[in-house]
């Protein structure tokens, strides 16, 4: 028995959803044009907080994109056939969320009009330049991967291309984590741990978003989605959230051991104002404690609880990116250890940052674009299995 894939039937609310997403995406692009016209003076970003809210969204989306591919990898590389019906949607989301993230990243450039320069001039010692190649390569490889899934002629290449895509995505997320890991100047970064930590984060955020999109699409198009499949994904998400917490613990414990990092840790964990709050309430409580409490509790296995857990994991992910990116810059560079430092350039001071509306709209626009592309693609091509109820899956794959 083969599983049947069908396009979205555009039932209730489909066009309204698309219109709202398109409006949000459009406003995001308009915000970027406004920034482009006036310069970064209209943002809350400064010469001290050089990467702000757009980077929080962009890096989150890029990391989540590589994680979204994980569902397909589990089926292709690790042979878990239960997940095989989901591999098309998984690969699609890897493409659309990467596109959304890159849109924000590129539109936030000081000279977004010079994108052709970024594509043609490479400094190969720069991890940023490597990432340009890794992102472009990812698009090509995942499109090829989709071809092996969706076209009979591509079938023989399915395993090979899928394995290659899995390896590529691990390298890609290593590259994303290393954007921060390779920064020797700042206390919060400069750590090899950031690369594997970002890979674990990607598993977490990518799966949480995948579950939300899956549930949303199946509910919207009134297709059956079984509890057994969702139950598996709940356990998996719980494991990834726990692993994220573990890496966060190791990161902070390492810093707490080194005297030279005590100032940074005191800032992030105790005295950092909004950054401390975002860490404890956003990243730890909402991002780790809430999802694990729900996902590892059989009494909270209802669909609504699962949605809450996945939304919490996503909000926790955005919080983590805020703490890593903005919090990491807000803490002043220690140019003169053992000295109190002050200057007209705000040396030695905790740097203030409050994002402007254009940054919020650009970031949200990127997320909306990713969802818009996903839902739109499901309307025109066959990414979604017609049925994913327990009986259908059991008939397909035995007692999985």
């Amino acid at each position, binding site marked *: 028995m083969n599983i049947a894939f069908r396009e979205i039937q555009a039932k209730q609310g489909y066009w309204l959803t698309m219109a709202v997403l398109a409006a949000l995406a459009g406003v995001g692009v308009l915000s970027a044009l406004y920034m482009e016209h006036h310069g970064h003076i209209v943002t809350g970003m400064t*010469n001290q907080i050089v990467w702000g809210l757009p980077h929080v969204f962009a890096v989150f989306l890029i990391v989540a994109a590589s994680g979204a591919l994980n569902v397909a990898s589990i089926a292709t590389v690790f042979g878990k056939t239960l997940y095989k019906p989901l591999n098309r949607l998984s690969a699609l989301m890897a493409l659309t969320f990467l596109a959304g993230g890159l849109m924000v990243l590129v539109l936030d450039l*000081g*000279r977004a009009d010079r994108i052709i320069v970024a594509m043609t001039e490479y*400094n190969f*010692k720069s991890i940023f330049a490597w990432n340009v190649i890794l992102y472009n390569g990812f698009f090509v490889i995942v499109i090829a991967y989709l071809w092996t899934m969706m076209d009979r002629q591509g079938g023989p290449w399915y395993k090979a291309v899928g394995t290659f895509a899995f390896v590529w995505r691990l390298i890609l997320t290593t590259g994303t984590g290393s954007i921060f890991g390779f920064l020797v*100047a700042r206390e919060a970064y400069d750590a090899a741990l950031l690369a594997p930590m970002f890979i674990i984060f990607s598993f977490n955020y990518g799966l949480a978003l995948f579950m939300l999109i899956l549930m949303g699409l199946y509910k919207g198009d009134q297709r059956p989605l079984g509890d057994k499949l969702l139950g598996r994904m709940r356990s998996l998400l719980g494991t990834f959230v726990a692993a994220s917490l573990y890496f966060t613990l190791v990161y902070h414990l390492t810093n707490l051991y080194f005297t030279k990092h005590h100032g940074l840790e005191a800032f992030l964990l105790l005295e950092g104002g909004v950054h401390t709050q975002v860490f404890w309430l956003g990243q730890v409580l909402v991002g780790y404690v809430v999802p694990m409490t729900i996902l590892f509790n059989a009494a909270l296995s209802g669909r609504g609880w699962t949605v809450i857990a996945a939304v919490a994991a996503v909000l926790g992910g955005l919080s983590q990116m805020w703490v890593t990116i903005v919090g990491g810059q807000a803490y002043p560079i220690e140019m003169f250890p053992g000295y*109190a430092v*002050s200057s007209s*350039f705000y040396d030695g001071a905790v740097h203030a940052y409050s994002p402007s509306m254009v940054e919020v709209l650009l970031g949200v626009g990127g997320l909306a674009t990713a969802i818009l592309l996903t839902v739109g693609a499901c309307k025109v091509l066959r990414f979604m299995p017609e049925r994913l109820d327990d009986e259908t899956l059991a008939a397909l794959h035995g007692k999985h």
Partner: protein
Amino acid sequence: MNTNSGSTTAVESRRAVLKAGAAITAATLAPGLMFYGVAHSRPAEEPASKDVRWGMLIDTQKCGDGCKSCVTACNEEHGLSGKTGPQDSQWIRKVDIRNLQTDAQHALPMLCQHCENPPCVDVCPTGASMKRADGIVLVDSHLCIGCRYCMMACPYQARSLVHEPLTDQKPDVPRGVGCVESCTFCVQRVDRDETPACVEACTEAGHNAMLFGDINNPETPIAKALKARASTEVRADLNLNTGVRYQGI
């Protein structure tokens, strides 16, 4: 030979014209020849030499308390606004430091340290951040995409993003909205064999706290001063071999 008075007058007047012409020619060419002879200014077509390494030595003991001559001179030289909001460009700034244990206080100018191994050059995706053969670290404004990764990477926070469109720019100091910029060691002056504006201003203010020159040439005052007395690199632990060194901290 015809020596009548009329022809003598004609010869004399011809000589006078030739002499005047020679004098005018000499007067026109001499400054250029003198300039070339004295200053050894590098012609535009000749690339920067790797035999030279431009460097700066700053004596914090001599740095005037509250004096900002170097900052003002830099702003004027490069057409910077001089404003000090968090979005304004500052290529050089006065930093006050106080030792938390001993309470010893120092003030020093902080600028691009023109590292031998600059992190900003390492991370720049397009190669816009670059180091000239003579050690001056620059941003190619035509290649800069404004990603600000160099600003994340610089251990000295020496770089600024141009946050708004500019008007009335200095013709020999290319700047542009959306691009990152920082101290160039006044490359336009150095290539004319002049000293950077900040160093000149410090000397004019009578402090003589800043010394500029080729640190590869053992005969230069800066090389001799560096050899004679210990100097410090800020964040020496990063092993970047900075072109700017400090004494007195």
